């Protein structure tokens, strides 16, 4: 079983999809000859040819629009946006066409497109390269939004995304691309797309998180265990739709909820989760829900980004806060 990084897991899944299904086509900026800014598509053009792995101009609107056209004609497109801050030109095509094709044609056509993009900061990058913009996508009906947290989950979820008949926004936590390795069996097995995963069972507090924050939340849970505080850590994985059932079941067990996300707090996905728990599980709560998030300001450059991104200390403090009083 190969021991791979998250970005290598993505490369494995892309290669598997290209090999298994002749309709799968990869497009994006510098993904072919260069192998991608993060090397996610390294070697794939050489292996599968220029028709299957195509370089595009530097035009995100074109990438998304072209994906809609190709998908409508029966191809399965996996497009790459180099950084999430470059998503904006593509949003028009994604929101107004890609997400609506099934509804507009009353189910006659679907739009099997995966748009892959790095998500979040922590790699000392300049402006526009470290954004966490998942709510821009989650707010649109017709899109799945998925965010893996480990090499194995990246592999399985990306295969599921490619096989799904509808558009999937696939957010890849940039900081985790090479942070750790995991044994990943390249067996073509997909993971369920709309299920949250309990990464660690616990009794005192539920932590719901996704992407790179899963890593910090797990470390916070380790730290808190030394204080005899038992955390249940849920990797949300699917940001739209949200697997509320798993969260509600966990909260009914622990009675406390901390939501951790790197994106800004205001109108973040954490608010949606907190609201749902308030609507459906208020009487199970033993303490107010606490959110640990980025701040409501522009994502700072490298010198300050550690202050912006929630870390182990802030997560652990939030958990302790729910246990006071």
């Amino acid at each position: 079983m190969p021991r791979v990084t998250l970005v290598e897991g993505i490369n494995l899944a892309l290669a598997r999809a290209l090999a298994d299904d002749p309709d799968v086509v990869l497009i994006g900026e510098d993904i072919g000859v260069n192998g991608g800014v993060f090397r996610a598509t390294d070697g794939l053009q050489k292996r599968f040819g220029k028709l299957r792995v195509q370089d595009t101009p530097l035009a995100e609107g074109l990438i998304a629009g072209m994906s809609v056209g190709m998908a409508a004609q029966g191809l399965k497109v996996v497009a790459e946006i180099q950084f999430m801050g470059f998503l904006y030109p593509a949003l028009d095509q994604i929101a107004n066409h890609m997400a609506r094709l099934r509804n507009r044609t009353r189910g006659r056509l679907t739009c099997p497109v995966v748009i892959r993009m790095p998500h979040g900061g922590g790699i000392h990058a300049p402006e526009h390269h470290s954004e966490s913009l998942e709510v821009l996508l989650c707010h649109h009906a017709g899109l799945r939004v998925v965010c893996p947290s480990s090499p194995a989950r990246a592999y399985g979820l990306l295969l599921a995304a490619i096989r799904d008949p509808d558009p999937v926004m696939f957010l890849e936590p940039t900081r985790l691309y090479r942070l750790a390795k995991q044994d990943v069996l390249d067996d073509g097995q997909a993971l369920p797309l709309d299920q949250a995963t309990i990464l660690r069972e616990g009794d005192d507090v539920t932590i719901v998180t996704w992407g790179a924050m899963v890593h910090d939340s797990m470390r916070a849970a380790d730290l808190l265990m030394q204080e005899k505080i038992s955390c249940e850590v849920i990797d949300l994985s699917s940001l739209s739709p949200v697997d509320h059932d798993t969260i509600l079941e966990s909260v009914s067990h622990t009675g406390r909820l901390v939501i951790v996300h790197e994106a800004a707090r205001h109108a973040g996905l954490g608010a949606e989760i907190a609201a749902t728990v308030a609507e459906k599980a208020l009487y199970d709560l033993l303490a107010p829900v606490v959110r640990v998030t980025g701040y409501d300001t522009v994502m700072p450059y490298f010198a300050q980004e550690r202050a912006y991104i929630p870390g182990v200390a802030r997560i652990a403090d939030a958990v302790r806060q729910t246990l006071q009083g």
Partner: protein
Amino acid sequence: MKRFHLPDLGEGLQEAEIVRWHVAVGDRIAVDQPMVAMETAKAVVEVPAPFEGVIATLHGKPGDTIATGAPLVDFEGAEVVATTSGGNSGATSAATSQGGVVGHMPETDEVLATPAAAAPRGPRGRTRAVPAARELARRMNVDIDSLAGSGANGLVTLDDVLAATQSHGGGRMPVATSSMRPAADISESGELEVLRSLRRAMAQSMTLARDNVMECTVFDDADIEGWQQGGDYTVRLLRAIAVGCRAEPGLNAWFDGTTQGRRLFHHIQVGIAVDTPEGLLVPVIRDVGNSDAGRLRSEVNRLKAGARDRSLPASDLRDFTFMLSNFGVMAGRYATPVVVPPAVAILGAGRISRDVVAVDGRIEAHRRIPLSLTFDHRCVTGGEAVRFLGAVIADLQLPA
């Protein structure tokens, strides 16, 4: 020596020009400290230090163009690391493996375990409670898990918690939180007693007063040396209050802070603070301004007796427009009595004593009543208050 090579500062940029150095040879620098500003085809980018160390060599001067991957800075030390990305977490991989990428992706030797699927588990069977009920139970030291909820599916409601506090009376309550649990040596001396009845009402009205009333107290004395024998202390105080209220009607009033409205009353209804073993009781003497001394005395007697044996109807215990605390019959000269809203003033009468006073340049000893007037300064002015007090004193100082 550690060598730091120029990383790709854009996406796939081949070179960058040195704008200015922020560090010099011999400087000790920290991780992430900006070392140099480099201008690329896209922007001026600050290049941070990849590791901590002392600078040995700067490759190039401002205006020089450096190729991506060429040496930029050498650090003192033995280890040779040919990388663009020394990293803060033990990364050692070669520059090329990260791709032509902006920034630096951290790498570690960590290997993630693949978690096993979670086993299903049954419901925990914890008490479900309305959040406000849970908080009330915490404050009242009621063990919420001991309550049978009356709401849907056993939901514990506010009423359930309130019922529990009442049914427990003054007896021992289950201690639900550690914050109210005293050390062992203290707990031996007394069980936790949840306030009830009059004492609980006092706690609530005092809290209300503290949170709402802007209290101001003035002190003075009434010289009663000239009183004829047999002056009825309480009746004289009541009469003096009536005189004061006629002089300053603004003290015989209610004030509502929410609407910022006050209501002045024609009749003077004086509540008298009566101390009972169960707590403070405030029976009310109606229409003090139109009552003669005989009626006032008989009402005082009736209300005090009724207060002591708790036989007064509710109608005798509400709607006072002014309050008198005659605490001096026990002890104490001055006090800062507390105004109980919606009333706006309270007069406290202290222990009568013989005071040394100057009379026409001579020293005499006179009987005096110490007076303490507290008023709600939100709706009563200082001038009104002291004019009221002056009228009270003038009336008290009359011989009869």
